[in-house]
């Protein structure tokens, strides 16, 4: 009986220590997760659900987390896995379509990166990119994940991450150049015109 009590005491202490560690390592990233979730889902309620599901899954598998590694990347990976499960169950998994790949390919010229644009305008331009390109750009340039971490999170090969990132950034610059040109900021270039066409064709397609 005393043995049982001792065991239950130990279990309780173990659970407490695990929770304390989780609070220290994982909880601080909740806001980052929410931003990602909100960006991906466009809806605050489902974003909250996704974050909660992600944190719960992370808590259950916290014993697998290696201390000293990037906890945010680990959480983002869990979030993407959770999201893909939800999307699978809703049968609306997002796949990069040929046309989206072609849009990225049409940016044949490298436009100079526009200056004098606001953060809001950058975000709006990002939002106009096809979703798979948005994802990698955000994970890399905002969340600071490495190619490997992005590949793990999205369950895609590292080469795909690199090519999507390259195209995504190029497309973003083209979008911004087109936007800047439309406002008469800077010189109108051939690339700017191309990007404008792309942007307008996307608008038309929506």
């Amino acid at each position, binding site marked *: 009986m005393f043995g049982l009590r001792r065991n239950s005491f130990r279990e309780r202490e173990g659970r407490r220590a695990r929770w304390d560690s989780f609070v220290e390592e994982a909880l601080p990233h909740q806001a980052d997760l*929410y931003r990602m979730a909100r960006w991906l889902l466009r809806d605050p309620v489902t974003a909250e659900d996704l974050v909660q599901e992600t944190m719960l899954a992370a808590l259950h598998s916290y014993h697998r987390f290696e201390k000293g590694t990037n906890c945010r990347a680990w959480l983002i990976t869990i979030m993407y896995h959770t999201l893909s499960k939800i999307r699978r169950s809703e049968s609306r998994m997002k796949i990069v379509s040929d046309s989206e790949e072609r849009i990225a390919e049409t940016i044949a010229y490298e436009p100079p990166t526009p200056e004098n644009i606001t953060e809001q305008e950058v975000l709006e331009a990002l939002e106009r990119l096809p979703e798979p390109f948005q994802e990698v750009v955000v994970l890399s340039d905002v969340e600071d994940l490495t190619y490997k971490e992005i590949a793990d999170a999205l369950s895609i090969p590292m080469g795909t991450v690199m090519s999507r990132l390259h195209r995504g950034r190029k497309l973003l610059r083209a979008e911004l150049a087109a936007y800047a040109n439309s406002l008469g900021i800077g010189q109108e270039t051939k690339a700017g015109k191309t990007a404008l066409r792309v942007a307008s064709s996307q608008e038309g397609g929506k």
Partner: protein
Amino acid sequence: MKVQCRDFRELADSYLSDELLVETNHDVLRHLEACADCRRELAARRELRAKLRKGFQEAPQLQMREGFAGESASSLRDVALSRPPLFPMSPTRYVAAAAVLLLVIALGFSVVQIIWRGANQPTSSNPLLASLNQDAAGVHRDCALNHSPDEKPVSLAEAGRNHDRAFTNLVNAVMTEASLPAGVELVEGHSCVVKGQRFGHVILKYHGQVVSVLVTGLQQSNVRPEEVIASAQAEGFQLAHFETAGHAVFVVSGLKDSENMLLARAIAPSVSRQIKRAALQSRVLKRG
């Protein structure tokens, strides 16, 4: 590698992300020292990235609502500190799991029963073969072990001439023509009668145990499919038996089933050949 402005535009983002190889990094730096346009482009991209990050992190629509972090942490805490449930699945799942388990057990039981019945079918379902099994075990006990058959045994040659031609070359079929495992020794070959049934009897020794190979003519043949060797137990002995050309052949011993079966499989082809040969000779002689 000499980096041109066009190359630089391709490499600039990887340079900013610190993902370039050290050598390429040096090449880029060398180019930047000499090219004001690319320095400006790099600065613009760095600024763009900073704006993207800041815009993303500070966008009002992407901020958590007040209270969500607390609510979430509180519910997570409850989960983390509570005892894991004794039954973590829903009751329906337990019922389903139990049903599946029962089904598997029932199926397993049926399979075992079918196999067991298959192996022991003659003893349980065929009274003739069950009785012959008993007789064979009796011959082994009375003749091979206790040396007290009903009648004085006669030689296989004599029995072959007077009773059943199949007995004639039985020792040869067992000891010479069969591929016996090492360590099998011949003790004796004769023909004996137990309960009125005549047997050709070859006594062997294997692994320190006395083994009887018995052949007897059947009044009613096809008690089981030809050449199928089955195992059974009778009077505490292990039996392996098969039927061929109107004869039943038994291997009886105190060995394990696997060893007894091994011997039966070894002698079956040559003994079967010998019995068929004898049957053919008998038919030819009858016609003559």
